[in-house]
């Protein structure tokens, strides 16, 4: 569904991604794991059209999407949920969700879908997004992304800033989305939980793909264990 072919990205002459190629099939959940600064976010931003590539190509359903503006990529069905959430702080929860479904007149029908997933939001419909707790804001950000009825969801560090118990809760809901057939590309620093959700994963290191494979195999890979789990 998404195919990234040998892309390079640089910030001010410094290469951030070098010759990165990944593929995400329809209905698949794929994780990109790696330490801080390894280029995970940059890779997602490049796919979402928020980061220019200097080399390589990005395809979505066989159609070239690199160089398209972000809002056009969103309308094609690739929706990026950034780690910073980028909500509308002075608008209510419902207004944020409505804007997620921008140009979709039947947006009200979609509310139930996200409220079943995150019931806590239903109790907060009239509350301003800026006054929500960190966990609730993360749920709202993902929900706003879902309101666009994405074909591919790009999730950047969904666990960031959340208490462990909330992370478990969030991933349980992500499992549900996966079972419903949504294609998910996930960047995550918390490797064990990311691999528990993903079918496959790529390990990014200093802007290059270091390893890739089935989640199960990567969990047994000593190198992954050493680098990210602190185990020998």
């Amino acid at each position, binding site marked *: 569904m998404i195919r990234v072919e040998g892309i390079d990205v640089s910030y001010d002459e410094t290469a951030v991604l070098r010759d990165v190629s990944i593929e995400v099939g329809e209905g698949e959940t794929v994780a990109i794991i790696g330490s801080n600064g390894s280029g995970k976010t940059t890779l997602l931003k490049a796919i979402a059209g928020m980061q220019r590539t200097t080399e390589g190509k990005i395809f979505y359903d066989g159609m070239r999407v690199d160089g398209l*503006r*972000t809002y056009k990529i*969103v309308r094609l069905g690739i929706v990026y949920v950034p780690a910073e959430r*980028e*909500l509308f702080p*002075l*608008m209510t929860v419902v207004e944020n969700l409505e*804007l997620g479904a*921008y140009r979709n007149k039947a947006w009200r029908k979609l509310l139930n879908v996200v409220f079943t997933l995150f019931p806590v939001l239903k109790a907060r419909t009239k509350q301003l997004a800026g006054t929500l707790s960190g966990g609730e804001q993360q749920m709202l950000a993902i929900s706003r992304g879902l309101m666009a009825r994405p074909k591919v969801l790009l999730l950047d560090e969904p666990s960031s800033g959340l208490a462990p118990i909330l992370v478990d809760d969030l991933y349980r809901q992500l499992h549900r989305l996966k079972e419903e057939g949504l294609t998910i590309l996930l960047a995550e620093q918390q490797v064990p939980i990311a691999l528990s959700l993903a079918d496959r994963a790529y390990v990014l290191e200093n802007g290059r793909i270091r390893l890739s494979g089935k989640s199960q195999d990567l969990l047994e890979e000593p190198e992954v264990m050493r680098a990210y789990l602190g185990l020998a």
Partner: protein
Amino acid sequence: MISLFIDGIICGLQLSLLAVGLTLIFGLGGVLNLAHGQLAVIAGISAAGLIGAGVNVPLAALLGVLIAGASGLVLDRSLMLMAYRYKGEARLLLGLVLTLGVSLAIEGYLNYSFPLVALTISLPILNVTLFGVVVRTTAIVAALIAILTLLSLFLFLKVTSLGKAVRSIVQNELGAELCGIDQASVRTFIFILGSLMAGLAGIAQGLTASLDVRMGMEFTIFALIVATVGGVRSINGTLAAGILLGVVNVFASFYVGTYLTFIILLTTAGLTILLRPRGLLGDWT
């Protein structure tokens, strides 16, 4: 005293009408449009020209406002594109220089070609009595135009999907982009809407007093002061600031004299900014 106060409110409504477009364009486009006042003049002078050519007053006023809107569209799609290519401060500064140039060019052209044209609209009934005070009908019509326009704007922003998209861009441009909102077309729309409202403010000026070709810069300065006091991204703040400064303006002109009015207005602006640096109503959009 009461009649001064009513005059102040009416003047304030006009100021709000003028300034709210400036606020919207700044909130969305990151550009302070220094040609904003000239759009009011374009509407007024076009209307005056049409009335002179025999068009009836309401139609001439409507056409004048539409001409202001069209001028806004042209400005947004031509010169402003240069500014939109940059972000943040660079865009703001380039926008200031470009719109200042446009403002001077419009003023120069109008001054050269139509030096004597002015818009003064009078109505068949001169005065009505309101709460025991005699008020000019033209002032009431001007106030009604402002109230209805501002109310519609408020409803538009609160209720419609496009209005919510406008607010979302003001609050978080990146977030809006991630919702699939095409910022450039919303920005163009708002530039036109702001220009139409400036046009209406020009017509209202023709109703309450008189509008001539040299008033553009003064309108822009008034709009800037009001927008600053209101917190330059807050629409409600701009409305409140317009009323406040309108009342101050009328009282200052009456008790102190016109020559000191600008200083008093700027002092009021300075004090509000010191006391409420985020604008009269803070972040409330």
